[in-house]
């Protein structure tokens, strides 16, 4: 693991602690799907959004969390990258907080789109990509989608239109944790063969381990090479609840759950959090540093 990869891992661990503490203090929220896309978000903020915050209407990088229930991860990563304070991220779901249960673009313009109704963020992403192409603006639109979300017909309408309009500037990342709300995708409404589906809709498809930063470097480099006239789908194989052993790959932790003090303590320990920091998270203030 390179030095930068270690640094990225540390950032992701901090973001995981913060989102879990936020869900605990909110008394509700979706830990499973938040943890599964945290590494994807960290990679994007660490690399693609280093120069400028995404979602400037004047152009440049655009980003949408279409699986809006993973908002705690987005806010936590936003806080780690200085878009808000950690204490602000801890106001998740509270009256008057800009950190609503699902991202709201009016409260937080850098979220790019108001989401929470699955499928719509993807279409909004197609709209952004189409406008950028039309206005000859540089930059990529990256949309993170849930796998269960792909059951929405709207996703395939969006996919078809993006290929038709040759949106080479659009990247759809599927957080393929194989679980959705009540059960495994395969038990609810099977998605396979998923790669073939995207290909047959006219997309370039790349696959990756969504928790491996070196692999993410490689796959995003290819997705962002600017060579493809077709939009790119990155199928990121992930684990729901990644980082917290008792949440991993379990439908129970999809949400919306109320974490007990014990559960927060156990999950923070699992993330290697020192005891004094755990107490600080439990009290509702972010540890310094």
């Amino acid at each position, binding site marked *: 693991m390179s030095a930068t990869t270690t640094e990225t891992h540390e950032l992701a661990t901090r973001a995981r602690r913060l989102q879990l503490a936020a869900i605990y203090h*909110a*008394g*509700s*929220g979706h830990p499973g799907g938040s943890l599964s896309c945290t590494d994807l978000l960290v990679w994007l903020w660490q690399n693609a959004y280093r120069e400028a915050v995404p979602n400037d209407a004047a152009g440049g990088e655009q980003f949408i969390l279409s699986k*809006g229930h993973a908002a705690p991860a987005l806010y936590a990563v936003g806080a780690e990258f200085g878009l808000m304070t950690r204490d602000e991220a801890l106001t*998740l*779901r*509270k*009256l*008057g*907080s800009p*950190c*609503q*249960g*699902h991202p*709201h673009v009016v409260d937080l313009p850098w979220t790019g789109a*108001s*989401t*929470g*109704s*699955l*499928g719509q963020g993807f279409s909004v992403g197609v709209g952004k990509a189409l406008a950028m192409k039309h206005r000859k603006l540089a930059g990529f639109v990256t949309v993170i989608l849930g796998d*269960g*979300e792909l*059951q*929405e*017909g709207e996703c395939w309408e969006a996919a078809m239109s993006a290929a038709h309009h040759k949106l080479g500037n659009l990247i759809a990342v599927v957080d393929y944790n194989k679980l*959705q*709300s*009540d*059960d495994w995708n395969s*038990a*609810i*409404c099977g998605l396979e063969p998923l790669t073939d589906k995207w290909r047959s809709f006219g997309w370039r498809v790349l696959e990756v381990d969504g928790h491996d930063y070196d692999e993410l470097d490689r796959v995003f480099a290819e997705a962002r090479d600017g060579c493809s006239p077709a939009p790119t789908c990155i199928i990121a194989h992930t684990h729901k609840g990644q980082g917290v*052993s*008792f949440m991993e790959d379990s439908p*129970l*932790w999809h949400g*919306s*759950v*109320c*974490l*007990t003090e*014990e*559960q927060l303590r*156990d*999950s923070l*320990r*699992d993330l290697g959090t020192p005891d004094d920091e755990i107490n600080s998270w439990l009290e509702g203030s972010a540890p310094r540093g």
Partner: protein
Amino acid sequence: MVEATQTEAPTLIGKSGDSMREAFGHALVELAGEREDLVVLDADIAGGTGVHNFRDACPERFFQFGIAEQNMMAVAGGMASMGLRPVVTTFAVFCLRAVEQARLSIAYSKRKVLIAASHPGLDVGPDGGSAQCFEDMAAYRAIPGMTVLSPADPVEMRLATRAAIAHDGPVYMRTGRSPVRRLFDETHQFAIGRGTQLRDGTDVTLVACGVEVARALDAAELLAADGVSARVVNMPSIEPVDHELLAACARETRAFVTAEDHSVRGGLGSAVAESLATHLPRPIQFVGMRDEFGTSAEPDELAAHYGIDAHGIAAAARLALTR
């Protein structure tokens, strides 16, 4: 490393207590024993809508569509055309997503389908503005032939579910996630198109549906303390509304307040206003969401924030009586 056994399973929000969704789920199980044709459709939120009860009891009559509400809605129309009695279940906000399918493939086609919407209005609380639906009753009420119901407690929910399944036409019915106060005992009666007077009063009539009924009863207490006599009417049938009962109240009280966990446009308030304007006009104040979206917080906290709690209803009554 923490052992999986060391950490208990999570507590799902709103799972405990006496909620309308649980009453709805149990009513479906009861009905399943009475009619062979009853089938339930879900879009990956059975645990949220209360139909996990039905899924466990009658797995062969439970159909899973995944996160695809528009498809599910029109599929229900198709199943109804082939001798089944479908119940479509999802959250209110996602019923909104499939309004056009409900219009064409269910109502326009005269299919008998029950569309049951959990998590309406502020009930989703912390999920925030994107999930809080205040437009569903307005949208569904505008569809020709669509009955719109919003029962007030678990007892009434059971009766309304039975009535909706027996009804000769499509029905849109709100259920609810949060535990609610019991208002009725087993002698309670329910009929589509009928409301019930829960408290007598001579100055003003408070007409409410869903979770607002309990709040209207509390408002009547607040008003009584001020010497204002408020009548409370439970109106679980928003379309058709109980014209006779409203006309009687218009004769016997001077003013009206309507209260709903919904936009003041197009729901109960509009139904009552249209009825009174046609039959016996009276001053009305509308309690509900104004021209705005919701935000994250607990449902009761939000009810106070948006003025749709007992204090908001009482204030509206005082204002109505000055007009």
